[in-house]
C-alpha cells in the first residue's frame, strides 16, 4: 500500500497552495502524480431562476481555475512530480468520489472547513460525507488552524505532517489497513506513536481482573503493531490510555506533539453514526491536527 497518486481537490480558499506544497514531501515515499481538481458547483452556474445556465460564467470559472492550476503545476513539476488538471461541473462530493475512482488515486486530500471566527469544528459535513462513501484513504489537511489551549488562542501551521504521526488503533480491519499505509512512510517519518484507548464503555462495567486482562492484551497487540512498523524501518512506541476515546486521542496527540493523527474508520452511514457515534469522525472534526482516515 503506497501513495503514488493523490487527488487534490480545492475551492481555492486561502492557503490552498501552501497546503499542496506541504504535501509534495510525499515524493520521498513514492508520490508520482497529483490530480488537481476543481468542481464548479452546479448551483453556481445552473438553474438561474427562470433563466437557465450561465455558460459564460462556467467558462470564466474554468479559465480562472485552469490558470491557477497551471501556476501550481510549475511548483509540482519542479519537485519532479507529474500532475493533471480536472475541472468539472456538478455536485461536488459525488463528482469527487467519481473522479477519485476513475483516476484510481491512492489518497484523497480533503480541505478543512471554511474558517470561522470561533473555530470548534474543522471538518464540514461534505467532507464527512466523502469519508463515509469512499474506500480510498482520506487526509484532512488542516494547513493553518486556530485553537484554544489552556485559555490561550494559538495559531498553528501544520507542516511536515508525516514527521510524527499518532496512529490510534481500535484493532479493527480498517486499523490494520491504516497500519499498512503508515508502514510505507519510511523516509518521511521520525517516529510513530501507536496508541490504543480503552474506551469508557468497555472499562466502566468490568471488574479489576478483567480490566487487567484487557490491558495486558492491548499492550501485547500494541507491541505487535510496533514490531510491524519497526520491520518497515520506522521507529515506533506504544501508548495505552483509558477514557473517552476521541478526547483522549486529541489530548495525547497534543501532549506528545504529534504532527498528525492516523485512524481506521468503519464507514458508518449517517443514521448509524447518529446513534452509535464515530470516534474517527469526532477526532477529525475536533482535532487541530491533520487526520488521515483509512476505511
Amino acid at each position, binding site marked *: 500500500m503506497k501513495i503514488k497518486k493523490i487527488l487534490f481537490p480545492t475551492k481555492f480558499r486561502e492557503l490552498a497552495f501552501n497546503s499542496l506544497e506541504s504535501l509534495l514531501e510525499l515524493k520521498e515515499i513514492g508520490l508520482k502524480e497529483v490530480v488537481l481538481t476543481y468542481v464548479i458547483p*452546479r*448551483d453556481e452556474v*445552473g*438553474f*438561474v*431562476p*427562470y*433563466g*437557465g*445556465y*450561465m*455558460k459564460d*460564467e462556467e467558462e470564466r470559472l474554468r479559465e480562472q481555475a485552469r490558470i491557477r492550476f497551471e501556476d501550481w503545476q510549475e511548483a509540482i513539476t519542479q519537485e519532479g512530480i507529474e500532475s493533471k488538471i480536472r475541472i468539472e*461541473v*456538478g*455536485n461536488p462530493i*459525488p463528482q469527487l468520489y467519481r473522479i477519485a475512482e476513475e483516476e484510481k488515486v491512492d489518497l484523497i486530500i480533503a480541505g478543512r472547513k471554511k474558517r470561522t471566527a470561533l473555530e470548534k469544528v474543522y471538518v464540514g459535513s461534505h467532507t464527512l460525507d466523502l469519508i463515509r462513501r469512499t474506500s480510498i484513504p482520506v487526509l484532512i489537511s488542516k494547513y493553518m488552524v486556530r485553537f484554544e489551549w489552556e485559555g490561550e488562542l494559538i495559531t498553528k501551521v501544520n507542516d511536515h505532517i508525516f514527521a510524527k504521526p499518532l496512529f490510534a488503533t481500535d484493532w479493527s480491519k480498517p486499523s490494520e489497513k491504516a497500519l499498512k499505509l503508515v508502514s510505507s512512510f519510511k523516509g518521511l517519518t521520525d517516529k510513530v506513536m501507536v496508541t490504543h484507548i480503552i474506551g469508557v464503555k468497555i472499562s466502566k462495567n468490568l471488574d479489576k481482573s478483567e480490566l487487567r486482562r484487557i490491558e495486558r492484551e492491548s499492550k501485547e497487540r500494541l507491541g505487535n503493531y510496533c514490531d510491524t512498523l519497526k520491520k518497515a524501518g520506522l521507529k515506533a512506541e506504544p501508548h495505552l490510555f483509558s477514557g473517552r476515546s476521541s478526547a483522549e486521542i486529541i489530548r495525547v496527540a497534543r501532549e506528545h506533539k504529534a504532527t498528525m493523527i492516523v485512524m481506521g474508520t468503519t464507514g458508518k452511514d449517517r443514521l448509524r453514526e447518529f446513534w452509535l457515534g464515530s470516534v474517527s469522525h469526532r477526532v477529525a472534526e475536533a482535532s487541530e491536527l491533520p487526520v488521515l482516515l483509512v476505511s
Partner: protein
Amino acid sequence: MKFGKWVLTFFLLSIFCIFSVSAMASDHEAAATHDAGHGAVTEHEAAHVGTEAHGHEEAGHGGHINLGELLPLWSCIPFACMLLSIALFPLLAPKFWHHHFGKVSAVWAASLAIPFLIAFKGAAVHELLHIVLADYVPFIILLWALFTISGGIVLKGTLRGTPVVNTIMILIGTVLASWMGTTGAAMLMIRPFLKANDYRKNRTFMVVFFIFLVANIGGSLTPLGDPPLFLGFLHGVDFFWTFKIMPHMLLTAGILLVIYFILDSYHYKKEGLKGAPVEEGEKEPLRLQGIYNFIFLGGVVGSVLISGMVDWGEVNTLGIHRAVQDWVRDGLLIVMGILSLLATSKKLREYNEFTWFPIVEVGYLFIGIFITMVPCLLILKAGVKGELAFLIAAVKEPMHYFWITGSLSAFLDNAPTYLTFFNTALGAFYPGMSEAQAVPLLMTETSIYLKAISAGAVFFGACSYIGNAPNFMVRSIAEEAGTPMPSFFGYIVKFSLLYLIPTFVVVTLIFF
C-alpha cells in the same frame, strides 16, 4: 460595499412605505366617504373584520368590508414589479439575479406588506395570512413532494434517438406530466432524452418541443399537472373537472407531435443518419429504477383526491379557517416526500443530478409573488366595483380569456396569471358572491370561461422560458449537456410564434 447597498435598499423602501401608507390611507378615507351610502367603513371596522372574519370569503365578500373596493390600482405595482423582475433580471443581470433573487423577492413583498399592514391592520393581516396558509403553503408542499418523489425515479438504458423513439419519449412525458407534474415528468425524461440524442447534430428543436409538450401542455389534465390548476383546485375546482380540457389538450399535443415528427424526420435524413449503420457500442438494457416512488406518487394523487371529496370540518389556524382535510392532505404529501427520501438510495438521486436548488428558488420567489398579488386579487374579486373594472369590462368572450390569460402566462409565471383571471371571471359573473358559491357555477354555467382560463394558462406557459418553472430547468440541463438553446427572444421568434401560436389559433377556432 454590501452594507452600503443594504442601507440604500432600506432607505428606498422606507420612502416607498411612507409614501404608500399616506396614499393608501387617503384613498381609504376617500373610499369610505364615497361609500357612505353603502355603509361607511372605518379603520376600526377593518380591524374588526380582520379578527372576526370566518374565512377568506367573508373578508372579501360577505363581511363588513371589501378591501377590493377600497384598494387603489397602484397597490398592484409591487406585483407588477415582482413579475417584471422575474422576466427581466434573468435577461439583463443573470449573475446578480442568481445570487440575489431571494432579496429581490423579499423587497417587493415588504414593499406591499408593510404599507398594507399599516393602512388596513387586522384586515390586511387576515388577507396576508390567508394567502400564505391557504395558497402558498399547500402550493409549495405539492411542488416539493412531486419534485422529491420524481427525483428518485431513474430511467436508464441505451436508447437511440430516432424520430420514432423521440416522438414516443415526448409522448410518454406528455402523458406522465398530468400525474407527476410537469416538473417531475420533465426532470425524469430530459436526461435520457438528451443522452439518446447526443449523437445528433441538431438537437435544439427537440428540447424546445420537449418544453412545449412535457413541461407544459401535458400537465393540463389534473391539478397535479401544472401549478395554475392546483391553485384552481385549492379554490374549489373539482379534481376531475380539468379533464374537460382533454379535447383541447389532445388537439394541441396531436398537432405539435405531428410537427415534431416531421421536423425530426427531416433533420434525421439531412444529417445522413437514415439508413446509416448503427454504431455498436456497449448496450445497456432499458430499465426504470426507484419504481417504488410511483407508489408515493399514487399517495400524492390519493391525498389530493381525498381532500377534494371529503368534508371533515374546519380548523382555525392563526385566525384562518381551513378545512381539516386540506391540512391532512398537506401532511400526507410531506409524509410521501419523506418516505421517498428515506426509501431512495443516494446514488439514484445523484444519477439524476438531483439538487434542492430549483425548489428552493421556487419557494423564495413564490412567497414574493403570492404576497404582492393580494391587492390585485382583491380588486379583481370586487368586480365592477374595483379599480380593475375596465379589465373585467374588456374581457368578455371565452376567446378573450384564453388569449389574455395565455399572453400574460407566456411572459409572467402562469400560476399567478391563472389566479388573476380566475378572479376576474368570478368578479365578472358572480360579483359579491362567496367563492364557495361562485366556483361551482363557474365550473358548470360558465364552464367555457374556466376552460379558456385553464387552457390559456397551461398552454401558453410554453411560449417563453419564463412561462413555467420547468422550462428554465430543462433549458439549464440541456445547455449544461452541450445542447445549444435559443436565446429568450430566439425561442419566441423561431419556435413559439412559428409553431405554438398557429396551433393556439386552431384551438381558438374550434373550442372558443
